[in-house]
């Protein structure tokens, strides 16, 4: 111990600085601020968020800016491979407008050729089709770039509408059940118990069959027939947990009405799990819609969804793989990004993780 700095006058009583001690030296963070900081640290979630925003922007603007309409047919230019200005010269990228070289089962080779140039059999005269189709065209000559992003728009709309309906019904049902409890709760929960057992996609299939043609809203409705159950159970569980906590009792003793307790106290406190649940509903609905499209119960043509495009693509996989690859990539990346965000949110909003 060095004594050099110690002088007798340092031994005077100055007392506590208790007010300083009360101060918490780390800045106190609100729940949402804290959650945001943690979300930002989650690289996966941020990547997911950025990709989702890009996909949403493309789904909104790509069809608007495209010179083609999703339903424009041009049979003369059907089944064209992708061709992108600038990238068309790079031979190893699939954007050259050339068909792939093929060998059939008998070993006969079909060499690659520029599909955008048509040769008149009689005259040998070559005519070049001057337009570009970034993702190629389908068997009716419709531009796939436009159709993929229109499809993304449709898939997203269905998913978001389904999530909103799930949320509204689920929160109302679960909220009533959990808050009032007693007989109401017992009856409501018996009903839930019965419906809960019904396999989700089977109900969706059944209800979808019941509509002859399907648009965005019908599909979204089919998905919410039992989709809200999960949300209602979640909300009920949260409310039961929170109901007996002091702050609700305090509000009750202060004479707050039931409605104001539900909306001012309970719902905000259950918001975290609800947001997480919604974020998981969206990819699940995109998935479900794709699945329906795949078994022929999706959106009615000429409108397309990502699922119906994938379905069309698989049918002609051997000759025109690009018809599968683009919608398949977009739908996978879309579901993946939503799942990444949802995962990140769950980790960020889970108070158990709070350190």
């Amino acid at each position, binding site marked *: 111990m060095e004594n050099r700095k110690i002088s007798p006058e340092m031994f005077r009583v100055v007392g506590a600085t208790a007010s300083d001690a009360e101060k918490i030296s780390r800045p106190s963070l609100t729940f949402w601020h804290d959650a945001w900081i943690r979300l930002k640290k989650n690289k*996966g979630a941020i990547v997911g968020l950025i990709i989702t925003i890009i996909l949403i922007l493309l789904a909104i603007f790509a069809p608007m800016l495209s010179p083609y309409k999703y339903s424009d047919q041009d049979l003369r230019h059907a089944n064209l491979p992708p061709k992108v200005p600038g990238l068309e010269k790079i031979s190893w990228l699939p954007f050259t407008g050339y068909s792939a070289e093929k060998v059939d089962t008998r070993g006969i080779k079909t060499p690659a050729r520029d599909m955008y140039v048509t040769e008149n059999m009689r005259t040998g005269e070559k005519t070049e089709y001057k337009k570009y189709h970034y993702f190629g065209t389908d068997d009716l000559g419709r531009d796939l770039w436009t159709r993929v992003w229109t499809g993304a728009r449709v898939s997203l709309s269905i998913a978001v509408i389904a999530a909103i309906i799930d949320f509204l019904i689920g929160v109302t049902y679960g909220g009533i059940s959990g808050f009032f409890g007693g007989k109401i709760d017992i009856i409501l929960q018996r009903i839930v*118990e*019965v*419906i*809960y*057992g*019904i*396999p*989700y*996609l*089977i*109900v969706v*299939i*059944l*209800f979808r*069959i*019941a509509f*002859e043609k399907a648009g965005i809203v019908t599909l979204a409705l089919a998905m919410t027939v039992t989709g809200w159950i999960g949300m209602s159970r979640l909300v009920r569980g949260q409310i039961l947990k929170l109901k007996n906590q002091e702050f609700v009792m305090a509000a009750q003793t202060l004479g707050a009405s039931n409605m104001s307790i539900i909306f001012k106290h309970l719902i905000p406190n259950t918001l975290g799990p609800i947001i997480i649940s919604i974020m998981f509903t969206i*990819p699940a609905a995109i*998935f479900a819609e*794709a*699945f329906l499209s*795949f*078994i*022929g*119960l999706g959106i009615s043509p000429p409108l397309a969804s990502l*699922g119906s495009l*994938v*379905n069309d*693509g*698989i049918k002609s*996989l*051997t000759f025109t*793989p690009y018809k*599968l*690859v683009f919608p*398949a990539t977009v*739908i*996978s990346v879309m*579901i*993946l990004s939503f*799942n*990444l965000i949802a*995962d990140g949110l769950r980790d960020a909003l889970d108070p158990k993780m709070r350190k």
Partner: protein
Amino acid sequence: MLRYTIQRVIYMILTLIVIATATFFLMKLLPGSPFRNQEKLTPEQIQMLNKTYNLDKPVVEQYFAYMGKVAKGDFGVSFQFKNRSVTKLISTRIGPSAQLGLQAIILGTIIGITLGIAAALRHNSWIDYGATMIAVAGVSIPSFVFAGLLQYFLSVKWQLFPVIATNSENQLTFIGLALPTIALSVFVTSTTARYMRTEMLEVMGSDYIVLAKAKGISYFNIVFKHGIRNALIPVITVIGPMAVNIMTGSLVIERIFGIPGLGDQFVNSIYTNDYPTIMGTTIFYSFLLISIILIVDLLYGVIDPRIRVAGGNK
């Protein structure tokens, strides 16, 4: 436990009644007649058909007649394949689907559990991040997209696997089932891996693991005797969602690889408006899934001693 089981079975029956009822009335609501090419049929023929399918009676009467038959496992006669009962149709188609499903579950759980354990034990390492990424990607890519891509690259482009799962005699081959099994197992792998990782992390962070360490138990024994054992028990609960996914996945994957299973049949019946088959298969699928979930729940109670006794005391 017995009371709980009975209660669950009653709910299961109620659920099935709701499904059967909903199926029945939805099919009744459908516009138009179930018979294709009706214009070509004479009125006598239509009347005869209506009589065969009980369509001349009032709807309520039809309903009770239908429910009575369903209770006995009789789903009526297929529209598409005349003279074949739906029950028969289902029973001949279930074999390939069951084989495919079981293979996918076995493959998926083995890989998934291994991945999950590795990720948890090397928490925040590249193994963990890799496994997590695989798991998220695996639940995100729809199985039919995955199947399509596998088929294109491995079968069409590089010709490593047959495109169709059956041989020329319409028999399933092992190599032919490889790609559909892999495609179907992706979801199983991912969900099991995710769940196992979470459970394992929680278990390894629990007080009793600290106590086991304090006892001087070796790391190996802590991981295997205390860790994996306890983490595996709740993982049983993913069997429910897994079964659902295997079922829906098989609908599309059987179609892509030409497997003559129940899923393929179901999609066919949707395409051909074969209502008795749609109804029958729907009810059968529901029965199957509800039973699996019930069995899993009961099994969970048997395996986890905490629940076992809590249930027994009730």
